[in-house]
C-alpha cells in the first residue's frame, strides 16, 4: 500500500461523491424497485400468503403446486414458447423483408415508410381491440374480404387453433420499429461490396446471401434476442384479445379465467396476475415470477455475451 498525498485523497473522495451524486436517482431506483422486490419475491415464493393474514412458512409447497397442480402453468409456458418460436421468427423475417423493400422503393419512399411505420405507434389495447373486431369470424371485414375471394374464413380469436396466428398477424402489423432498424443497417452496407460481387457475376440472391446478410448479421441477432425478451413479457395483447373475444366485461368485479379460447392465449406474465391478483395466492405468483425472471435473464445474458457490438456495457 502506498501512502497517498492528502490533497489527492481529498480529490478522490470528492470525485467519488460527485459520481455517487449523479448516479443517486438510479441507485435508489435500483434498490427500491429492483433489488428489494426481487429478494421479496424469493422470500414470498416459500411462504403461504393470501395478502391479508400474516405469511407463514410453506417450504416448497408453492413450487410443487405451480409445477404439478396449477392447471394453467404448462399451457401458459407452452404458449409463450410457441410465440417466442413463431412470432419472433416471422417478425424478424417480415421486418427484414419490409426493410429491404423500403430501400428499393424509388417513388414516394417517404409516404410508404410512413404507412409501414404507423401501426407500430397504435396503442396496444386499441390495436388489439381493432384486430378482434377486424378478425371477428362472423361479420369482421377480414373474413368478408376472404369470402369475397372465395378463401376459407378462420375463426381467428374465437378458435383455439387460430388465436395465436391471429396474435402473430397483429404483431406483424406493428413491425415499424424493426423496419427502421433494418433499413438503417441495410443502408450502411458498403456499396463497393455489391459492385465487387456483381463483377464476379453474383445474382440478386447470391448478393443477398454473401454480401447483405453477413453485413447485417449483428442487427438480425439483436432483433432476434430483443424479440425473444419482448415476447417473454407479452401480456397486454393476448389478455385483451382473450377478454374482448370472449365477451367478458372488463374492469374490476367479474372473474376472468384467462386464455380464451381454451387457454390458447394464456402467457406466463398473465398467470402471475391470475395467481397473485385474482386467486390471492401470493406465494405461487412469486414462483411464476421467478420462472419468468430465470427465462428473461438467460436471454439477457445471451444478448450481452453475443451482442457485444450493439448492446455493450463497455464503450
Amino acid at each position, binding site marked *: 500500500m502506498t501512502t497517498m498525498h492528502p490533497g489527492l485523497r481529498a480529490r478522490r473522495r470528492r470525485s467519488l461523491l460527485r459520481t455517487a451524486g449523479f448516479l443517486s436517482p438510479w441507485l435508489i431506483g435500483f434498490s*427500491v*424497485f429492483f433489488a428489494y422486490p426481487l429478494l421479496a419475491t424469493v422470500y414470498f415464493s416459500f411462504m403461504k400468503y393470501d395478502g391479508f393474514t400474516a405469511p407463514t412458512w410453506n417450504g416448497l409447497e408453492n413450487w410443487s403446486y405451480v409445477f404439478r397442480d396449477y392447471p394453467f402453468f404448462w399451457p401458459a409456458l407452452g404458449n409463450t414458447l410457441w410465440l417466442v418460436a413463431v412470432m419472433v421468427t416471422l417478425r424478424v423475417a417480415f421486418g427484414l423483408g419490409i426493410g429491404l423493400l423500403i430501400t428499393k422503393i424509388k417513388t414516394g419512399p417517404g409516404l410508404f415508410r*410512413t404507412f409501414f411505420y404507423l401501426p407500430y405507434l397504435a396503442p*396496444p*389495447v386499441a390495436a388489439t381491440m*381493432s384486430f378482434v373486431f377486424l378478425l371477428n369470424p362472423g361479420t369482421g371485414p377480414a373474413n368478408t374480404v376472404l369470402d369475397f375471394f372465395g378463401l376459407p374464413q378462420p375463426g381467428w380469436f374465437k378458435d383455439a387453433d387460430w388465436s395465436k396466428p391471429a396474435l402473430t398477424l397483429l404483431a406483424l402489423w406493428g413491425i415499424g420499429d424493426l423496419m427502421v432498424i433494418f433499413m438503417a443497417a441495410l443502408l450502411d452496407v458498403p456499396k463497393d461490396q455489391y459492385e465487387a460481387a456483381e463483377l464476379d457475376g453474383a445474382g440478386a440472391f447470391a448478393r443477398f446471401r454473401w454480401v447483405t446478410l453477413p453485413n447485417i448479421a449483428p442487427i438480425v441477432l439483436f432483433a432476434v434476442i430483443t424479440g425473444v425478451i419482448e415476447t417473454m413479457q407479452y401480456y397486454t395483447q393476448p*389478455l385483451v384479445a382473450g377478454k*374482448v373475444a370472449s365477451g367478458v366485461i372488463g374492469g374490476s368485479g367479474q372473474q376472468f379465467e384467462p386464455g380464451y379460447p381454451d387457454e390458447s392465449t394464456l402467457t406466463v406474465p398473465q398467470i402471475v396476475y391470475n395467481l397473485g391478483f385474482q386467486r390471492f395466492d401470493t406465494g405461487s405468483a412469486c414462483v411464476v415470477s421467478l420462472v419468468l425472471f430465470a427465462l428473461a435473464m438467460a436471454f439477457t445474458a445471451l444478448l*450481452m455475451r453475443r451482442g457485444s457490438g450493439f448492446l455493450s456495457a463497455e464503450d
Partner: protein
Amino acid sequence: MAPARTRAPARTRPPARMRRGAALEWIGVHALAVAAALFFVLPFVFVLLTAVMNDNQALTRDLWPDTWEWGNFRTVWETPGFLTWWRNTLLYAGLGTVLAVGSSIPVAYALAKFRFRGRNIMMMAVIAMMMLPPQVVIVPMYLFWAKQLDLSGTLWPLIVPMAFGNPFTIFLLRQFLLTIPKEYTEAARIDGCGEFRAMLRIVLPMAKPALAAVALFHFFYCWNDYFGPQIYASENPGAWTLSYGLESFKGAHQTDWNLTMAATVLIMAPVIVVFFFAQRAFIEGVTLTGVKG
C-alpha cells in the same frame, strides 16, 4: 425525386435490355410496396369506417357505411369517465416523462463520461433491469404500495417510480452521450465549469435529438401502459387511464362495435398527430436502439 434527373446527362444511354430490366424491377418493387401498404393501412381504414356506422349496420358484414354517423365520436366523448381517463393519462404520461427523463440524464451522463470502478457492472445492471418483465417484481411492489403506503387506487404508484431513473432511457441516452467527444467537457472543466454545469450547458444542448427521442418513447410507453394501471388503478375508475378504460369500455358497450371503434380512433389519434410533428425524433430514436454503442 425522378431517377432520370439524377443520372448525369453526359453518360451514354444504357442498352434497351437493361432499361427494360430496371423498369420491370420498378414495377415489381412498387407492386409489392402497394400490397404491403394495403396490409398496413386497411385495418385503420376499416376501423374508421366502422366508427362512423350506425348501431345496426355495425353488426352486419357491410364494409361501407350507409349513413355517416359522426355523432358517434361525440357519444364516446360524453361517455361518463372518458374525460377523466384523458386527464389521468396526460398526468401519468406527462409527469412520468418529465420525471423519468430528468432523473435519467445525470445517471446516463455519469455512465458515459466518468471513469469509476464498477461502471461496467452498473451498466450491465441497467441492461438487466431494462430486460426485466414487470411481472417479476410486481407482487412485492404491489404489497409495498397498497399495504405499506395505502396508495392503491391512485396514480402515485405509477408516477413516483419514474423519478428514480428509467433503465431504457438511461441506456439510450448513455449510448448517445458516448458519441459526444470528451474534448467538449474537458474544455468546460478547464474554464472552471463544474461538472453539473458542464452537463447542463455544454452536453445537453448537443443531446437534444436524443432527449426528444427518449421523451417521446417514454410518453408513449405511459400512454400505452396497460399492466401498471390494471394493477394499481383498477379498483378506482376515477384513476383509470385511456388504455385501461378503453378495454372496459368495450365491456360496457357489448355489441356496439361502432362506438368501440370510435373510442379506439380517439385514443389512436393523438399518437398519430404527434408522429406527424415529430417524425424525425421517432425514427432517430428507433435507429438509436439498433445501432452500435
